[in-house]
């Protein structure tokens, strides 16, 4: 009996040590979310790039749009100006002072839009083109280790901290090495998968990283996806006038 007691204490000790060791290797996931935001945002400088959006819809076929994007995360502003197709030339989304405006050159009017809406029929949300706020909008609920292709990843389940986050739940895969966000599964309030975003390529720009190729796969329509590629990336300072309605109007003259 005494022999069993000692064995139990010994096992418990071993388990405790194993747990402590495992815990020592487990990152601080809250800090990890903040780090991801830090990597993806440009708090100290501007950002500009050309966007190519290739949508694949089983019903409507392929569609390609080109746009120029400008970002200033310092004051949470961005501008997306469409260059192609011809029918959308000059249309723009301007995020400024917490408002998102859609400009239609035909009516020459700015109408309010929402960060939660899809960008021009693609599978990307308007909010995907602004600054990242994972750390403020989500809290970690569970985590596990996994593998995504050749990469060892942390698979982290997130729950929205407020009821205004577009997706109530997310499951993100973060590379163990480098801490880059590689995949994000976005769920509805009823916990149904709505879309999966694959961040397949990054380029470094200063201290920040830019996901220059992102694939958004619609989970509700089989075969519907949008691939967004960024080129001509620049972090040079932009004039303040870029983030104004007047600039959008001027570009359409």
């Amino acid at each position, binding site marked *: 009996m005494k022999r069993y007691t000692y064995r139990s204490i010994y096992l418990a000790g071993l388990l405790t040590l194993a747990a402590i060791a495992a815990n020592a290797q487990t990152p601080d996931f809250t800090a990890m979310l903040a780090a991801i935001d830090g990597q993806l945002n440009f708090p100290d400088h501007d950002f500009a790039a050309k966007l190519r959006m290739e949508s694949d819809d089983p019903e409507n076929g392929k569609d390609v749009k080109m746009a120029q994007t400008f970002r200033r995360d310092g004051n949470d502003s961005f501008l997306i100006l469409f260059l192609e197709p011809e029918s959308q030339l000059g249309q723009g989304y301007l995020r400024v002072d917490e408002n998102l405006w859609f400009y239609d050159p035909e009516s020459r009017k700015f109408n309010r839009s929402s960060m939660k809406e899809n960008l021009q029929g693609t599978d990307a949300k308007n909010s995907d083109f602004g600054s990242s706020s994972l750390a403020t909008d989500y809290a970690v609920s569970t985590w596990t280790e996994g593998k995504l292709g050749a990469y060892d990843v942390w698979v982290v389940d997130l729950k929205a901290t407020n*009821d205004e986050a577009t997706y109530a739940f997310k499951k993100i895969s973060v590379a163990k090495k480098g801490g880059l966000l590689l995949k994000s599964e976005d769920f509805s309030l009823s916990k149904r998968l709505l879309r999966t975003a694959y961040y397949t390529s990054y380029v470094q720009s200063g201290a920040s990283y830019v996901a220059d190729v992102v694939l958004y796969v619609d989970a509700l329509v089989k075969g519907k996806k949008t691939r967004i590629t960024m080129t001509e990336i620049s972090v040079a300072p932009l004039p303040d006038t870029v983030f104004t309605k007047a600039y959008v109007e001027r570009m359409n003259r």
Partner: protein
Amino acid sequence: MYQSLRIAMRNVTRQKKRSLLLGGAVAFGFFIITLMNSLTAGVVASAKDNFSYAFGGHLYLSGSVVSERGSEISIIEDASAAESALALLGDGIASVHRRSRGAGSLYFGTREVSQRIEGVDFADERDFRDKLEVSRGSLADLDSMDAIILPEDTVRKLGMDLGETLIFKVATVTGQLNVGEFILVATTASGGSLGLTSGYVQKVALNRLIGLDEGGYQTINVYLKDIEAVSAAATVVYDELSLRGPVEPRTVAGNEMSKMTGLRRMFGMGGPTSVDAAERWDGTKFTLSTIEDVMSTMLSLVSALDAISMAVFVVLMVIIMVGIMNSYRMVLMERTAEIGTMRAIGVQRGGIRDIFLMEALTITVLGAAGGFLLSLVVMGVSSFADFGGASFFSMFLDKGHLKLVIQPSAILRNFLILCAMNLLAAYFPARAASRLNPASALQATY
């Protein structure tokens, strides 16, 4: 005067062919204008009825609050101001319904269609089942939490059939995406390019999806006993709402932004938008829309149609006037000797003039009466025709039938215009006839 009328009647019957042609032209003009007026009035009446049933009322009060994060959330949290305002309408209200709604996407297989869905308390809105124009399926299973009714157009785009299950993706009132599954139980006639036709589910089911309590709602829909009283009622309600709390201005000078804001809220379009710090408000801010706001585009079209038909009527009348004038000039020549005889036996100038005018008036009255009777016959026949229930035009029909509304005031107006124009046309030949020299007229050989 009576003698002049007798002679005028005799002249009308004496020249039957000419009178028939002139009267026929008058009748045709009056027939066209009466038919057009009745048609446009009927279309407006049918559309108002159909749109009222589709949107669940004549007055729509939608509410919104500002969240802690500064977003505008579409919900009525405190309805006291609205209830006080509606109390002022007293007996003018037929019924009040509280609905929720969401604009989202329907998914079936690989197909996706944008659709507005209304959450209706079917137990509360008892006449909903009777009034809804179902083109296929049945409303027997409407109490089921997963039952959905969709417009025929939407169902066709989705390529689905009755009894099949679809997915509805919609944002909660705070903007979080959510999805639910529904079974198609019935289809309704579509609003076509107006794109205003809603789908319907149980309010509780929709509330669960959009994050409202089971008893929560976003709009208060009011049926008035008299649809013509909408504008007056809206003014009363708006004035009271303005006194009791924040309310969206109904119109802004120079643009229609407020009306559009109201309709956007009413239709549940777009997600929550941020509100500038200076523009934020406390409590529930109400936005008032009416069936006339919803139908403003259509009403403009109807007004244009009315104006066009009036212009056609006037052109027709001018042509008839020229015809009458020429006819009476001929009559003047034909009856010169007769006029000379009448003048010789003591008929005064005014008497001669009155005979001509009475003759023109008689033809006008008889022609108008004929045109009116003809329009009644055509209206009666066309109202039997069934144009079906699932087309674009069905929103302008009364359960598939053309509705023609006789408008006594318009008929009286058109009749008076007709009489005035024809009397004017006959006046100049009549005056010329009255001024004939009796001695010269007696010598006339033609």
